[in-house]
């Protein structure tokens, strides 16, 4: 489509009286303090390559060391055990692909059926190399079945990957118990946790957890995109999955970019200094939104667990009789931005694999609506959403009319 038409499309769409952004799962801005921390590194500081021996390079290297340590501290790790990458997707790919190069005999990788696609697809893409994926089913709340995990472990098992929190339905997974089960069975089975959605939401102590690999992301705590991390336990000699020159970072053979590091470190400082305060704030908004919608709108179902079993920032509900893409568009025209696991929002025209895995019928998955809360969301936005969404749902249901699902 020509850009001219996109401009017209936006004109037809127009702007609502208010913008309430809840689609943090799919895109985010940085906190203004984060931006201010990054700014000098674009203009005057840290532009030298930290691997080069001159003053400008050493200045970068000094800064790099100090800031990286702050990030590593947030997961109780040493700097040397944290590899900086460009995204959670890259971290997950390095963990999966890198592990297959560490142990070439074992060919089975176990993942929960609700893992992020950057894990599932990374494993599936190794099919030609003889790597087999086996999925561990989850309960109707998305909690992985530990008995089945235990049953599936054998001498051919290379790795288990289980996320700390599900990014779509907010399920907090029993990662600690899962690691104990796996390591009790066989110390040599690697364990990876994608903690992107958990980072800054629940306490994460990778050292205490005895996990081999852990993925974290800057974007999820309102830091800049294009920087993330992969924790690698002491003694594991993971290698980069692509080639380049030698650099300070071992797993990314690129030149380290200080503005991103400055932003990530500042985001860590904010999120972890105000950890309790931020999570109490989002939890309060979460429950007000989730139960408010359930009270004011008929035929609403909550996807995922409730209370303390659910991530403090996650609201995911299904409005029965509504198709998700129409729903996200109608709410967008009312200034509310969220996403849906409907088939029509995906390229493959199948509903979200996560909603399917927890046993949602297609018509329930199609009406799903995902909203996330950050420290930048306000109670006023939640109030506006609670007033506005019933009208949005009514209109979409009026188009569905008498169609029986």
């Amino acid at each position, binding site marked *: 489509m020509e850009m001219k038409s996109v401009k017209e499309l936006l004109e037809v769409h127009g702007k609502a009286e208010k913008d309430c952004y809840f689609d943090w799962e799919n895109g985010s801005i940085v906190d203004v303090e984060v931006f201010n921390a990054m700014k000098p590194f674009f203009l005057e500081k840290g532009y030298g390559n930290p691997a080069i021996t001159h003053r400008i390079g050493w200045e970068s290297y000094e800064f790099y060391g100090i800031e990286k340590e702050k990030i590593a501290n947030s997961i109780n790790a040493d700097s040397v055990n944290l590899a900086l990458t460009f995204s959670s997707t890259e971290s997950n790919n390095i963990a999966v692909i890198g592990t297959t190069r560490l142990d070439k005999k074992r060919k089975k990788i176990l993942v929960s059926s609700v893992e*992020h696609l950057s894990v599932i697809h990374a494993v599936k893409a190794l099919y030609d190399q003889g790597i087999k994926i086996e999925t561990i089913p989850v309960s109707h709340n998305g909690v992985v079945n530990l008995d089945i995990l235990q049953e599936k472990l054998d001498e051919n098992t290379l790795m288990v990957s289980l996320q700390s929190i599900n990014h779509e339905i907010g399920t907090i997974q029993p990662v600690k118990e899962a690691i104990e089960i796996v390591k009790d069975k066989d110390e040599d089975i690697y364990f990876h946790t994608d903690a992107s959605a958990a980072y800054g939401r629940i306490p994460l102590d990778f050292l205490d957890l005895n996990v081999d690999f852990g993925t974290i992301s800057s974007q999820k705590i309102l830091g800049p995109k294009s920087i993330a991390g992969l924790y690698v336990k002491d003694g594991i000699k993971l290698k980069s999955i692509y080639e380049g020159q030698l650099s300070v970072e071992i797993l990314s053979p690129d030149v380290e970019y200080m503005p991103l590091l400055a932003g990530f470190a500042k985001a860590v400082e904010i999120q972890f200094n105000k950890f309790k305060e931020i999570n109490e704030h989002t939890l309060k908004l979460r429950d007000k939104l989730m139960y408010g919608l359930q009270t004011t709108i008929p035929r609403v179902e909550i996807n995922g667990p409730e209370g303390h079993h659910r991530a403090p920032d996650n609201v995911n509900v299904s409005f029965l009789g509504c198709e998700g893409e129409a729903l996200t568009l109608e709410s967008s025209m009312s200034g509310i931005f969220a996403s849906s696991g409907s088939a029509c929002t995906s*390229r493959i*025209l199948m509903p979200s694999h996560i909603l*399917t895995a927890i046993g949602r019928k297609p018509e329930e998955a199609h009406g799903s609506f995902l909203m996330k809360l950050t420290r930048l969301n306000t109670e006023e936005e939640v109030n506006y959403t609670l007033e506005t969404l019933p009208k949005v749902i009514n209109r979409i249901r009026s188009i569905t009319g*008498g169609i029986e*699902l």
Partner: protein
Amino acid sequence: MSSRIPLPYAPRVLELFRNPQNLGHMKDATVSATAGSPACGDIIIIYLKINDETESVIKSSFESYGCASNIASASQLTILIGKLTLKEAWEITWKQVSDKLGKLPKIKTHCGSLAVGGLRRAIRKYYSEVNKKKPDWLPEEITKDEKHALEEEALAEKMKKKYVL
């Protein structure tokens, strides 16, 4: 929640989504037909009120459980139907619907197809259940757009098998 694609609809889709023409259940419809499946999240009902003597449409309407382009396609189709004869209505193609909508994004062309498939289903139903004098112009074999509707209905099952882990 991956596998997203941007869907820059043409403005006409958004206009019809916002103000759908000919929306709603038709109590006095001569015939109605459904196309699509709940698994795909894509269902439309086309209602037709037909003048039996002239074999032409008096009015048409739709209901849709589906995305914005599904709603806009069904609405655009009813606008195209207007008061055409059934023979003329039969000849409306998904491409005409898509063109009127400023060309649907490739992944959404099935929406236009589904609407046209639903209309042809309604016309066939009319000649098999109401007016039993089947005209010469009505083909015995199902047409491409009807096939698309059937394929769409089968798609969910197919994709499920392919995609389930």
